[in-house]
């Protein structure tokens, strides 16, 4: 027998990366700003997104959402109540969304008729970090009930995020949330990250977040 070493230098997630690249090109050509929302289960992604969709629609923006869960279409129904088109992606056991699933669920949507597309990932702080969905902005969410050290525990995800949203800020007092520690940890893992401190219930901080979205979208059109 002869031994042979074959150099491959091949990305393991090459297929996903290629599909994500194609999606990104499609999104750019259509002029839609695409965001990928990632957090642990229970952070309040859906509630935050409901308010975001509703407010954007009120100001005349055209929005849509895809939402990933292992099972049930509960979240898509909640999001659709805002009046925005919303579709559920059921992964049936897979702990993250992949570019292929996103691509498959865009059928029949006219992307050029949208200003924003939000993709709510499966609640998980580990696996979604490896899978590019073609988004332009990855948003990591963290609630005040989870503990200030989440960024230190899940550095891969927080390091890959473009922006962070602290949710349920109205509960910060009762939870004894240490705001300075949370901001410090976020900046240790992702220096310079934009942070929004919000409550989808009271509306606190939502205006800053929406201004950020609009600025990002305008930057996109200008660019």
């Amino acid at each position: 027998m002869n031994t042979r070493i074959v150099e491959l230098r091949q990305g393991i997630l090459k297929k996903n990366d290629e599909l994500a690249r194609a999606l990104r090109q499609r999104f750019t050509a259509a002029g839609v700003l695409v965001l990928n929302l990632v957090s642990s289960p229970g952070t309040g992604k859906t509630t935050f997104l409901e308010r975001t969709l509703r407010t954007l629609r009120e100001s005349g923006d055209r929005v849509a959402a895809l939402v990933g869960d292992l099972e049930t279409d509960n979240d898509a129904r909640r999001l659709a109540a805002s009046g925005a088109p919303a579709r559920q992606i059921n992964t049936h056991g897979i702990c993250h969304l992949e570019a292929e699933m996103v691509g498959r669920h865009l059928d029949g949507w006219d992307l050029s008729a949208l200003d924003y597309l939000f993709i709510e990932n499966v609640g998980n702080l580990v696996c979604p970090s490896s899978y590019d969905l073609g988004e332009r902005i990855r948003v990591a969410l963290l609630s005040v009930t989870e503990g200030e050290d989440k960024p230190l525990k899940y550095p891969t995800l927080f390091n890959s995020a473009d922006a962070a949203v602290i949710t349920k800020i109205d509960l910060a007092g009762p939870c004894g949330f240490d705001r300075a520690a949370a901001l410090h940890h976020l900046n240790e893992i992702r220096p310079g990250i934009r942070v929004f401190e919000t409550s989808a219930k009271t509306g606190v901080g939502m205006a800053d977040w929406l201004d950020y979205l609009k600025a990002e979208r305008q930057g996109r059109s200008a660019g």
Partner: protein
Amino acid sequence: MHELSIASSIVDSVTESLAAYPGARVVEVRLRLGALAAVIEDSLQFCYGIATEGTPLAGSRLRVHVQPVVVHCARCGHLGALPGVQSFRCPSCGEPAHDVRQGRELEIEAIELEEPEIQA
């Protein structure tokens, strides 16, 4: 948690490459795994055993080379490896550094094959 799908992707990629080497047996698969790749080596090894069963990779070894995170410092220009993933600061001057140049790899570096002797 997604180590099984990673292991299956490795099997698919390597099986594809094997088409060029008929009769070869896979002895070892070498991976480059960044410290930020979010993959646990122990789980990956476990899943690799399962994913390779009944495939041309059955019985092969998986060797993992972990790559440290390397950042580039915008202030002093230093390019250096971080001691861990708990603080993204320039290892030379201490300035926060978010320009990650290495550490997200999830890549098959090479495969080691055993090929039958070619009879003259």
